[in-house]
């Protein structure tokens, strides 16, 4: 079973203060790990290390025990600002990896259509992506990441720019995509409810230097997959209590 492991990684940007200090984290297939923490505590830096966009100053990043040297197709990334390619059609965006690999146009199109179907965008393959709504674009970004059939899915606030209602719909889509692909998933969010609703495990980070201060296993997402309504989950007392608890960890609130 694939494992993506960060082993005691530390990081500082050129000449600056340490941004991450001795962080260890393991992501296995089937897990949905959500990182929360205040702005600037190093969440994005951590994800960029895992993705291979950054190299740690000390510590190691391993996939199945082997150190990684840069990004790799087994670790697909979904970006907050979708990072789609506006010069390509929706379908060509989804099939971008295939394009790089030199797969023929027709085959690329077949692949793209299958994935667009999965994310609920069947029939929009020929649209220029700048004619899609924010929520649709995030789906395309997800489809593009899933296209490579990755072992891991790394997502940095993928729903951050969406409005409340679209966001709720996308949460269920993420749950389903994770469930069906089985990819080990790492997601960053500012939404405490979102974290509770999606995660199998929540990682709370604290700033200066960025470090993990809490790990919390939850299972609301599995309850949702089992058929319970989002509304009943989110208003259940356990959920509300977990939410307050988590907010306390993040903001280290003094009980007022």
């Amino acid at each position, binding site marked *: 079973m694939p494992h993506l492991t960060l082993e005691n990684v530390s990081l500082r940007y050129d000449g600056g203060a340490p941004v991450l200090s001795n962080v260890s984290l393991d992501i296995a297939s089937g897990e949905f790990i959500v990182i929360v923490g205040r702005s600037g505590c190093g969440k994005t830096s951590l994800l960029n290390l895992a993705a291979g966009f950054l190299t740690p100053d000390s510590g190691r990043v391993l996939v199945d025990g082997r150190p990684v040297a840069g990004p790799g197709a087994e670790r697909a990334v979904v970006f907050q600002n979708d990072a*789609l390619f506006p010069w390509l059609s929706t379908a060509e965006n989804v099939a971008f990896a295939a394009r790089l690999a030199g797969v023929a146009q027709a085959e690329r199109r077949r692949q793209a259509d299958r994935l667009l179907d999965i994310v609920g965008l069947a029939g929009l393959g020929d649209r220029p992506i700048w004619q899609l709504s924010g929520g649709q674009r995030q789906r395309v970004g997800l489809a593009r990441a899933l296209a490579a059939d990755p072992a891991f899915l790394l997502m940095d606030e993928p729903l951050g720019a969406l409005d409340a209602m679209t966001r709720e719909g996308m949460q269920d889509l993420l749950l389903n995509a994770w469930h069906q692909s089985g990819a080990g998933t790492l997601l960053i969010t500012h939404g405490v409810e979102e974290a509770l609703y999606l995660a199998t495990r929540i990682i709370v980070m604290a700033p200066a230097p960025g470090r993990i201060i809490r790990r919390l296993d939850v299972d609301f997402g599995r309850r949702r997959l089992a058929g319970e309504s989002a509304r009943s989950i989110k208003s259940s007392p356990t959920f509300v209590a977990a939410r307050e608890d988590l907010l306390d960890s993040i903001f280290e609130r003094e009980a007022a």
Partner: protein
Amino acid sequence: MSLDLAEASLAPSRAESEAARPPTPPRKRPVVAITAGLTLTALLLAWTIASHFRLVSALFLPSPFEVSRAFLTVAHEGFVDATLWQHLSASLGRVFAALVGATLIAVPVGFAIGSSRIGRGIFDPIIEFLRPIPPLAYLPLVIIWFGIGEPSKILIIGIAMLAPIVISTTSGVKGVDPDRLNAARSLGATRGQLLRHVVLPSALPSILTGIRIALGAGWSTLVAAELVAASRGLGFMIQSAAQFLVTDVVLMGILVIAAVAFALEAILRWIERRLVPWAGKA
């Protein structure tokens, strides 16, 4: 002067809402259009009256009628040994030759500056040094070095075009969304593929903008380049006409130059819209 506050306060205050909203409300247009129409009519009328009643001598201000006649005459019979069309194509030929040359040099240089530290080290100081010098200041030097022939004229125009294209290309390359680069890398792109599949298309809108600005700069410089030792070209034509005091041809030439500048800009904008329809949208 009245401040159109109603208009101002209706404008959407956030960028996102822009897309969802209809373009500028049409109800306000007429005021502008009517005033504009009146202004232009008034100007044309003043011109006609001043020249018709010879308030100003024809030497200084030929009438609109004389200017249009000059257009027809020069179009058919020519002036200083070439027809209007020959002057125009000489000028356009120079500008386009310069454009091709400048683009072939400036785009790779812009890529080098924008995408590599070594490239920046080599070319940035050169460009930063050349940039502020008015291309016309080179004119005498270029004439000493390369003579008064076509190459000199094309070179002068090309020099004027270089900086805008390099600078736009550089900013286009530097402005490539790092997330897009990262996205492509995590989808398996090699360095070459990054350049070809991400950097180039990302920078294309900037490059085209640079080319558009460069065409404008080149067209300006053209007129000056033709002040020296040309035997054809719009700039040469109006200068010769001025020396023979043929003011109607001078005015006609200015109008043609304006029209061409306008057309070039419009064509480039059209090309931009065609080639990079996404620019500014995503």
